[in-house]
């Protein structure tokens, strides 16, 4: 039993990190139907910047604030200078642009902050919490708690505020949204800033557990993408459930089957789910009009 619990905790911890990455994908997808493959880089930026500012002698709260604010600005710059000029292009073209952007961000950080791996102390110590014979790190609770908060906040934003509804409207039909007075350019700018900040928050929270380096965004981005597809594109709840599911299945596979096949399992999962539920678990049931 304690063994099962330990696998579960491990899965939830890792899964929460995937979920945070997945939420960022969801936000931009909702606003523009674009899968932003630079999402992983925002996570990396969050962690690396906190480390950098701590090194520079800034106190933790200031470092965290800056590490979230700067990626948000970077997100807006990306939208302004790469996505907006290509607004008329296909979604596929935009996706390829985001891949290019991710390479640029990774390269800049590699040159500026080096190739080393970094970490900083956990927010509330490293003493594991013992539950039913299994252990959980306090930092995992931070990750889970903030993820939950973010999900609730996003839900509120999208379903209860005008700004959130404007973003959804833009994603459904940009022209119609514009006709009823939504500033669609503003919507895109905001959604990039938000998802960048969200990714950065993830990076800030995760780094004490996962460590960080200039290339950590690749893996997180990829697994986050798997989580999004499993959970259903565009659904905040789906992103979280997808992330946790991928994490838990990975941990269980490593524990009960074989650690050698652990990384193959999420991809098998994606195939199975897409076969039965082509739009993911919580994906919107839409019919394409031809």
């Amino acid at each position, binding site marked *: 039993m304690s063994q099962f619990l330990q696998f579960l905790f491990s899965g939830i911890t890792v899964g929460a990190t995937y979920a945070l990455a997945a939420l960022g994908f969801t936000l931009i997808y909702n606003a523009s139907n674009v899968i932003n493959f630079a999402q992983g880089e925002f996570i990396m930026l969050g962690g690396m910047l906190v480390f950098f500012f701590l090194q520079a002698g800034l106190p933790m709260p200031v470092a965290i604030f800056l590490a979230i604010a700067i990626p948000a600005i970077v997100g807006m710059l990306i939208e302004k200078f790469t996505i907006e000029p290509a607004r008329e292009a296909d979604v596929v073209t935009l996706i390829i642009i985001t891949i290019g952007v991710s390479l640029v961000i990774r390269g800049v950080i590699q040159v500026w902050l080096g190739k080393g791996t970094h970490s900083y102390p956990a927010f509330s110590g490293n003493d594991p919490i013992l539950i039913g014979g299994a252990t959980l790190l306090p930092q995992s609770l931070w990750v889970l708690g903030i993820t939950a908060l973010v999900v609730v906040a996003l839900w509120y934003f999208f379903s209860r505020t005008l700004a959130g509804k404007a973003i959804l409207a833009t994603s459904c039909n940009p022209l119609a949204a514009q006709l009823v007075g939504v500033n669609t350019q503003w919507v895109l700018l905001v959604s990039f800033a938000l998802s960048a900040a969200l990714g950065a928050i993830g990076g800030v929270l995760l780094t004490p557990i*996962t460590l960080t380096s200039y*290339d950590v965004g690749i893996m997180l981005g990829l697994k986050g993408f798997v989580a999004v597809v499993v959970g259903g594109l565009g659904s905040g709840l789906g992103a979280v459930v997808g992330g946790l599911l991928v994490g838990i299945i990975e*941990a269980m596979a490593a524990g009960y089957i074989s650690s050698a096949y652990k990384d193959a399992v999420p991809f098998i999962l994606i195939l199975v789910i897409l076969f039965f539920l082509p739009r993911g678990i919580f994906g919107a049931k839409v019919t394409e009009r031809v």
Partner: protein
Amino acid sequence: MRKISLLKTLATAAVAIGASFSALAADPIKIGSVLSVTGPAAFLGDPELKTLQLYVENINKAGGVLGRQLQLVHYDDGSDAAKANAFGKRLIEDDKVDIIVGGTTTGSTMSMVPLVEKAEMPFISLAGAVVIVEPVKKWVFKTPHTDRMAAEKVFEDMKKRGLTKIALLSDTSGFGASGKKETEALAPKAGMTLLASETYGPKDTDITPQLTKIKNTAGVQAVFVFGFGQGGAVVNKNYKQLGITLPLYHAHGVASEEFIKLSGPAAEGLRLPAAALLVAEKLAANDPQKPVVTGYRKAYNDRYKEDVSTFGGHAYDGLMLAVEAMKRAGTTDKAKVRDAIEATKGYIGTGGKVNMSPTDHMGLDLSAFRMLEVKNGDWALIN
């Protein structure tokens, strides 16, 4: 790069014409190199390149080799073995280098081996696996310790402490996979029993499931982790999180200051085999390696303001072996240089004492590894 070498050629030509010396005598000796300066193996290739650049410069300031200047021709394979092959070809056919020092990873090295064998080009690899020098290839040498030696050294220390039943945890990188193979093959011969063998990805962020399984395996007396990079630090953190108290061993692939820093208090008490370079300041004053490793460490620190790693040390050894061999051969003739490298005896490098022979193209024995333990956040030599 191109421009500089063009200028150099022009300058050389001008000197040759002006002084009516033989142009050949002033030609630089070309040291070719293919390194993984970017990509996943960047933490290996980056210090290697910096070391080569630093020492080529130093040697040139001191008058060069055989009265000629050294010229470093290097390419970055981006940790991609296929690219290494293409660059290897370019070094041999276009740049016409005199010797190749490099091949950061085992994959890159092995992709260049057929080329150098065919072109009869002396080649000193900086990569770890045994396959590079076993079976012996006429033109191929290497400087780093092998994974098998690491396992032997660890087993030796375990047996001293009466630990014979162990669990192996290896990462899925080329380094870890080869280490796993060697460890599993060596264990029965060394009288060790492997009760469990688990793997993890080098970029994994949580390894508690594997460690939980090991923890719940009855009879395990010690855990041996074979991997490189940051994964090792995650293992340490999870090890402590799960409250496992068994003696913990790592292989040499994680040996760096960064490893201790990232692991924090979780690294306390773990042991690993490593080159003397890591504990340069702590070596006994009469240790033959002391002047070499402290000298390299100081030169590297002064120039780049960052900590040395054993990987840069491999490049230092590779370059020095090449230079020494050329001096002894008195020429850059490839066959003679090759013979001279093979005849290297008693060279003291950062990796240990090198005694090459026609059957041993690495030339290191177990004494090249020091057993270290992490004490109070720093390395300490054991016995």
